[in-house]
């Protein structure tokens, strides 16, 4: 068997999370206007300031045009053909005791490997489960509250900690930041809120599990994490969606704020439905993620493993404001069949002696299209700033592509910025070597790809790096002829 047939047969994928949960839902009619925004706001019984904020964002959005500077290509999105709110709960019922949750919903999370019953859950991981537009359960809240840690859905945060949310919401990603962020600000329905008080080291991984279930809906969640002085938190998000023929839009916003001496580790394992082998269906994932190292010596790291979605458009970034702050971005993006990914990061050096590290691993298979897009910007005041960027692309097969678009702007002469990039094809020699040791060709492909991603995978918390490895394997699997 030659190289290309081994690779082609080893990478055909099966999506294991493609099932649909049959559940009665409260889904509002498709389309967007001010009435819809008022309706969402009232369903969530939010404080007054939120409605004003949403409407301002909506009016701003109306005047914006969808950006097309990235390398992804897709037919026009019909924003009037999407339902902007879908809840598995009855109207006006925005939280519910776990005992009263529809068993079908609990079964969904069990099936996904995320039991919401605290007794069954992974030790050391607290989960906020978001189903379509609402958070259905948040585990371990009481235990965390004893340390003063707030970990709850955004809806709950708006009701219970309105002032804190109001102070920080939009302070890193303003409501009019970009087209998709503005849309999110107008219609976002839920998401996760975390606050870690000064000096507290969060004793468990915090995580949000996003699930899109309803058809023809979009998911627009918003996450805000605030790490106060000298605190530490590690946070993870996971996501899946049913297999459907129509594309579905996911436009999320994540804001991270690290105060003096604080550290936030944010990890993503993204496995949205990628569409079928012909490119039908799949999630359009247009996400704005940005962190601000506001205080001196604060640290933010983004680690992402992107294996799903028909289109991935995201650039988790760090604004390095505090002196000696550090930002890191570690990424694995796998595109197979007709998947497209345009992803990367922005590191904005404002403070003195700030440093950033970028490590990007792109894997393209089938007719996948994979682009790294990065910006390293060193402002005039960022004396002694440092950046190291490494972008590696691995091609499996002859019909996929990989591109690198690095952009570097340096306004301070003491800054040191390094960029390295490589592109390679999975080698027939490596495959044969593994096969000669007894590995089936698909196990060989998976091993080699895993090795290629190793430096990123080891950044993930233990439990999730195992999951990420499996996911890469599944997304590369297929029958070998």
């Amino acid at each position, binding site marked *: 068997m030659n190289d290309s047939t081994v690779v082609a047969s080893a990478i055909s994928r099966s999506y294991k999370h493609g099932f649909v949960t049959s559940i009665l839902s409260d889904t509002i009619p498709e389309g967007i206007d001010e009435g819809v925004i008022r309706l969402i706001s009232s369903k969530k019984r939010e404080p007054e300031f939120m409605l004003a904020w949403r409407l301002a964002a909506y009016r701003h959005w109306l005047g914006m045009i969808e950006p097309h500077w990235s390398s992804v290509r897709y037919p026009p999105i019909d924003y009037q053909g999407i339902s902007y709110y879908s809840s598995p709960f009855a109207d006006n019922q925005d939280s519910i005791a776990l005992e009263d949750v529809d068993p079908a919903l609990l079964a969904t999370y069990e099936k996904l490997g995320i039991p919401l019953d605290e007794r069954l859950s992974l030790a050391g991981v607290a989960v906020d489960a978001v189903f379509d537009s609402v958070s259905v359960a948040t585990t371990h809240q009481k235990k965390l509250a004893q340390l003063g840690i707030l970990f709850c859905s955004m809806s709950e945060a708006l009701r219970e900690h309105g002032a804190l949310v109001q102070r920080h919401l939009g302070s890193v990603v303003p409501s009019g930041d970009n087209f998709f962020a503005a849309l999110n600000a107008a219609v976002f329905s839920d998401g996760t809120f975390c606050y870690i008080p000064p000096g507290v080291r969060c004793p468990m991984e915090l995580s949000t599990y996003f699930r899109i279930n309803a058809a023809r809906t979009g998911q627009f969640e918003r996450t805000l994490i605030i790490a106060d002085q000298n605190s530490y938190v590690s946070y993870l998000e996971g996501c899946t969606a049913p297999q459907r023929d129509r594309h579905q839009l996911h436009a999320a916003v994540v804001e991270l704020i690290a105060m003096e001496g604080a550290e936030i580790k944010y990890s993503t394992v993204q496995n949205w439905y990628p569409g079928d082998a012909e490119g039908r269906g799949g999630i359009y994932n247009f996400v704005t993620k940005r962190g601000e190292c506001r205080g001196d010596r604060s640290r933010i790291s983004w680690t992402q493993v992107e294996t799903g979605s028909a289109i991935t458009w995201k650039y988790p970034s760090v604004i390095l404001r505090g002196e000696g702050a550090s930002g890191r971005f570690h990424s694995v993006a796998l595109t197979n069949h007709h998947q497209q990914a345009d992803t990367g990061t922005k590191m904005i050096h404002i403070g003195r002696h700030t440093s950033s590290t970028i490590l990007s691993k792109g894997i393209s298979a089938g007719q996948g299209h994979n682009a790294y897009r990065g910006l390293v910007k060193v402002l005039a005041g960022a004396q002694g700033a440092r950046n190291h960027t490494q972008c590696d692309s691995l091609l499996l097969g002859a019909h996929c592509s990989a591109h690198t678009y690095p952009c570097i702007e340096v306004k301070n002469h003491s800054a040191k910025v390094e960029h390295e990039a490589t592109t390679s094809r999975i080698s027939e020699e490596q495959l044969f070597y593994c096969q000669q040791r007894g590995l089936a060709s698909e196990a060989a492909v998976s091993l080699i790809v895993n090795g290629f*991603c*190793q430096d990123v995978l080891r950044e993930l918390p233990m439990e999730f790096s195992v999951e990420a490895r499996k996911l890469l394997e599944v997304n590369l699997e297929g029958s070998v002829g």
Partner: protein
Amino acid sequence: MNILEVRNLHVSVMNKPILRGLELHLKPGEVHAIMGPNGSGKSTLANVLAGRGDYQVTAGEILYQGQELLSMAPEDRARAGLFLAFQNPVEIPGVSNVRLLKEAFNAHQRYRRLPEMDAMAFRAYLNERTKSLELSEDWLLRPVNAGFSGGEKKRNELLQMMVLEPHLAILDEIDSGLDIDALAKVAAGINALRDTKRSMLLITHYPRLLEQVPPDKVHVLIGGQIVLCGGLDLAGQLEERGYGWLF
């Protein structure tokens, strides 16, 4: 029964004939050496036996343990006990030696319907086997062959052979690039693996290795054919006189 029978083997690479009617018969427990000048087709033979693509077998047949070898997938040949120590072992960045070894070992176990070993048990199994190679502490955690010197790569091939315990080992220039001390260690490792059931094919240019691992037979491969067979003395003769007189 012969463990390996190669009959009238003709192989082309990109339509260029390389092997032209090669014959080879190996009994269980026998060690044969194949010598020959550069480009005579030694590695081609090794690669065809292991099932590498890009080689067209235009005539002949190969029986391994009485089974038609050419119709077997490369991984099945490996699991059935055919091992190739590569002339130029490839680097696999990010994959640790222990990971490849464990996956390979367990693939063999599954094939033999034996239980797989978990990480702990496998480490113990490895430690038993690797002492003699005097590998450094971090060896198993280093990526496969990445940044290894020529000699280290060869020792790594031998380590894999020790772990997988093949029935037929083809060692393609396992001695090249080794200094005297390293050669002695590798030779000792090969001798330790020699037993009445395990057969080996030693491909080499030099008699040095053969002096330390005395073969049962020496074959001279020139122009895609075995032109001469003999004992260890033949290897010495070749060192003195070169290959010229055989053309």
